């Protein structure tokens, strides 16, 4: 379990990036932090593995106060995948990049080998194993950053803007992976403003603005509140807007699968035009 208690964080520049955050994230939850750039999402994520420590209040990860725990200790529990994947890289090869953390955690070399091979294959990077990580494309770098964290299998996986620069197939893959990790009981926390992606995931959404949490609820509820979304520089998923624009058919606004919406529209049109078949 993760707990934020009255957390405030002020950067050395004086910018208050988190302001009175109270949160509880239970084991196995999927949470999306949403909000505009600068809302405090990344700062919050960096508090999960102790990269940043609260200026006021405290963060507890599995009962451990992050102020009294080293990043190395916390990293075993919380794997954080950065937005700028490249910041993480320094090895000569993609394979070595993934192996590094595992070796650091003291795994036997045969375990390291198996895990690295698995993680690279899972993220479709096995063919680049011997390449330099810096020569990968943007999307591939992102997948490598994820592979690194997946390889050591932490309990909590935090992803900072995981869909940026990813094509639709990679997003589907990421979605599958997140669902698989959920089955394994992992806690997943992502920061994102990819509304369409989050809409498919249907997680708990925590909306942030100016370092504060301004809403916390199910995707099915939050995504219907256009005013609230706009206040955070977000837009509703297109499927929600479509249903809203079809209010003359008497459809209830809801976050649904395109297929369900198709059926509802057909039924509503049929009810209007009883003479057509």
């Amino acid at each position, binding site marked *: 379990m993760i707990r934020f208690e009255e957390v405030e964080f002020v950067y050395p520049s004086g910018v208050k990036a988190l302001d009175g955050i109270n949160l509880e994230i239970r084991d196995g939850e999927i949470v999306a932090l949403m909000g505009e*750039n600068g809302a405090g999402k990344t700062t919050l994520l960096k508090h999960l593995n102790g990269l940043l420590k609260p200026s006021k209040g405290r963060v507890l990860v599995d009962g451990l106060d992050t102020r009294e725990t080293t990043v190395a200790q916390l990293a075993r529990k919380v794997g954080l995948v950065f937005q700028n994947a490249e910041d993480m890289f320094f090895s000569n090869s993609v394979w070595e990049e993934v192996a590094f953390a595992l070796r650091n955690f003291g795994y036997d070399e045969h375990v390291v080998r198996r895990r690295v091979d698995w993680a690279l294959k899972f993220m479709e990077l096995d063919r680049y194993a011997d390449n330099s990580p810096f020569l990968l494309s943007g999307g591939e770098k992102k997948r490598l950053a994820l592979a690194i964290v997946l390889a050591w299998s932490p309990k909590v996986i935090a992803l900072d803007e995981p869909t940026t620069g990813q094509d639709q197939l990679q997003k589907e893959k990421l979605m599958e992976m997140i669902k698989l990790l959920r089955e394994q009981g992992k806690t997943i926390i992502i920061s994102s403003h990819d509304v*369409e992606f989050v809409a498919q995931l249907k997680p708990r959404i925590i909306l942030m603005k100016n370092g504060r949490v301004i809403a916390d609820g199910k995707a099915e509820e939050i995504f219907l509140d256009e005013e609230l979304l706009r206040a955070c*520089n977000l837009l509703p998923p297109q499927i929600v807007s479509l249903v809203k624009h*079809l209010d*003359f*058919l008497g459809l209830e606004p809801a976050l649904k699968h395109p297929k369900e*919406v198709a059926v509802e*529209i057909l039924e509503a049109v049929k009810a209007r035009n009883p003479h057509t078949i």
Partner: protein
Amino acid sequence: MRRTPQRASRRKDCGANPIVKIENLSFRYFGSEEYALKDVNLEIRRGDFVVLAGRSGCGKTTLLRCLNGLIPNFYEGDFFGRVIVDGMDTRKTPTHLLSQVAGMVFQNPDNQLFALNVEADIAFPLENLGVPREIILERIEWVLKLLKIEDLRNRSPFELSGGQKQKVAIASILVMKPKILLLDEPTSSLDPLSAKGLIESIIELNRRENLTIIISEHRLELLLPYASRLIVMDQGRIIYDGHPRNVLEKADLMAYGVAAPRVAEVARYINAYNGCLKFERIPLSISEFVERVREVIG
């Protein structure tokens, strides 16, 4: 890999000259085994609004780099075929000349901005070209107004939001009055509302200034209603090229990593049911969708 022989130049008389003409283009980066572009042929007319889509790594960025001469003048590698931009062969034209015709906006605006204030950033490329002061000032006014960012002129680029930065980056390109604006996933780091604002600006540049736009982008729902062409690439080749509606109708783009707008998806499902509502033309926007429903229910 089959080498594409360079063909003797051939002239086609098909009305107005295309602003971009690519003939049998293949390219691979130095040190890379695989070709990033394989035998690409493409013509783009002035005023076209072209959306490039496809999986990441499919060659979109490489193609864009070929259009402003970064390839082969900056990135080394094996280059076959010809790229003619506004009548200039990119292999024989210095990049500073090409960049005045085809300006590129990148994913991350931070790489493009460096001056102390927005005005200075926008003025820089012109100063560099030795353009007289009064013309520079005139151009800055024009471009600030065009992108509706007059209020940003004295701000530091570093205190701007992502969307504002990207507009300033575009301004610093437009100030050179290019004929072609190349954009490589310009909204990828922006939040949805900022992305929408940026894309609306780009659409307006195409409509009002008849600027040729070539943009690679994953957010198709905002662009497709206005684009004149959708080009889908896969493994260095062009797989589909046509009006967005035609491409969406004939292809399942998911296999190429491209998400059709949700409205198109819903319309497809509806058509599959073969019921009382049928979309003869796949809608690209909510308004097209709603219009069709209204037509049917009378």
